[in-house]
């Protein structure tokens, strides 16, 4: 039993060590987006521990920015639920691709679902679990690291948001860059280009038609409809791994 525990602790250490470098872009982004939240909530009269508590139990960028406005007398809970649901509706998508991978994560599953932010979700698809590390521990390590950056950032923002020694304007571009890198990586892989293009075009068209506040839901409906309707076209395109295998076979 002791040796089992020890070896599990050993692989956790390995999992965190392997996950850490992948989370650096999220570290840069979350520290500063989190700090912006910390500054805003502190201006509402909530001190550093409140800021960190909110980031611990809510853990959502746009969701927490929106929530700052809710701490006023006479707010309606129904309105809170509706607005938060609409702002985070894109998250409904994310689990669909992770049902299989999360199945073998045991007790960690609830936390992995809770912590499924845009950035964490993206890292799950950018990274490959290194050999010798159980996948559930690797996913868990990414989730915990990202979450801790977020809590740390909001605490720092609430504590010393006004004393920041250098101008960090624009550092949140790290998140945009992360998504662009994943998109480019997939494109260079030659995998799922049609699906990526469908996502880009649907979102762009819906952004133009529906405006910046309301385009995500129509974009999601549009993406689903196109993927389902064009299934034969999208399925005929090879996924990345298959393509690699095919290249190897041809080479062999």
């Amino acid at each position, binding site marked *: 039993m002791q040796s089992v525990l020890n070896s599990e602790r050993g692989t956790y250490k390995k999992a965190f060590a392997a996950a850490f470098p992948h989370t650096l*872009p999220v570290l*840069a982004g979350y520290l500063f987006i989190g700090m912006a939240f910390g500054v805003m909530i502190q201006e*509402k009269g909530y001190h550093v521990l409140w800021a960190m508590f*909110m980031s611990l*139990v*809510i*853990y959502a960028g746009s*969701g*927490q920015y929106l929530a700052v406005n*809710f*701490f006023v*007398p006479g*707010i309606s809970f129904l309105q809170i*639920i509706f607005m*938060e*649901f609409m702002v*985070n509706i*894109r*998250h*409904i998508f*994310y*689990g669909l*691709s992770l*049902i*299989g991978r999360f199945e073998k994560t045991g007790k960690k*599953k609830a936390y992995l679902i*809770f912590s499924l932010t845009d950035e964490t979700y*993206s890292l799950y*698809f*950018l990274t490959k679990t290194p050999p010798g590390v159980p996948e559930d521990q690797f996913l868990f390590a990414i989730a915990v690291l990202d979450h801790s950056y977020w809590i740390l950032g909001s605490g720092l923002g609430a504590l010393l948001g006004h004393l920041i020694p250098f101008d960090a*304007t*624009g550092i949140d*571009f*790290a*998140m*945009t*860059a992360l*998504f662009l*890198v994943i*998109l*480019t*990586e*997939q494109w260079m892989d030659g*995998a*799922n*280009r049609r*699906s*990526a293009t469908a*996502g*880009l075009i*649907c*979102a*762009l068209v819906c952004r133009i038609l529906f405006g*910046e506040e309301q385009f*995500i839901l129509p*974009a999601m409906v549009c993406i689903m409809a196109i*993927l*389902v309707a064009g*299934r034969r076209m*999208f399925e005929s395109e090879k996924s990345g791994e298959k393509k690699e295998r095919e290249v190897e076979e041809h080479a062999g």
Partner: protein
Amino acid sequence: MPVSVGKTLAIIFVVSATIFFTRLIPFLFFPNGKELPPVIRYLGRVLPPAVIGMLVIYCFKSVEFTHAPFGLPELIAGAVVVLLHAWKRNNMLSIGVGTVLYMVLVQAVF
């Protein structure tokens, strides 16, 4: 604090539960051990690239292309990220250079 501790906690709880629920929905429909319908398995496979595409647009959603600086910092830094990544395929390099460049552009150039 603008509202009482109890009300604050209630608001935090409601926000947290609502967001958790958006992330939980697919797992409610397909709990462990349940056979996934082929169309869901198919969507699970092809959705991530589409979602990443959507998130890229989401990041640019507030950029004003119709007046100065016409989204130039975003377009320039974004193009550098893509080209640098296509060339070197080094995640940290592409993200680091793109972010620093963007910060210089919005703080000192435009």
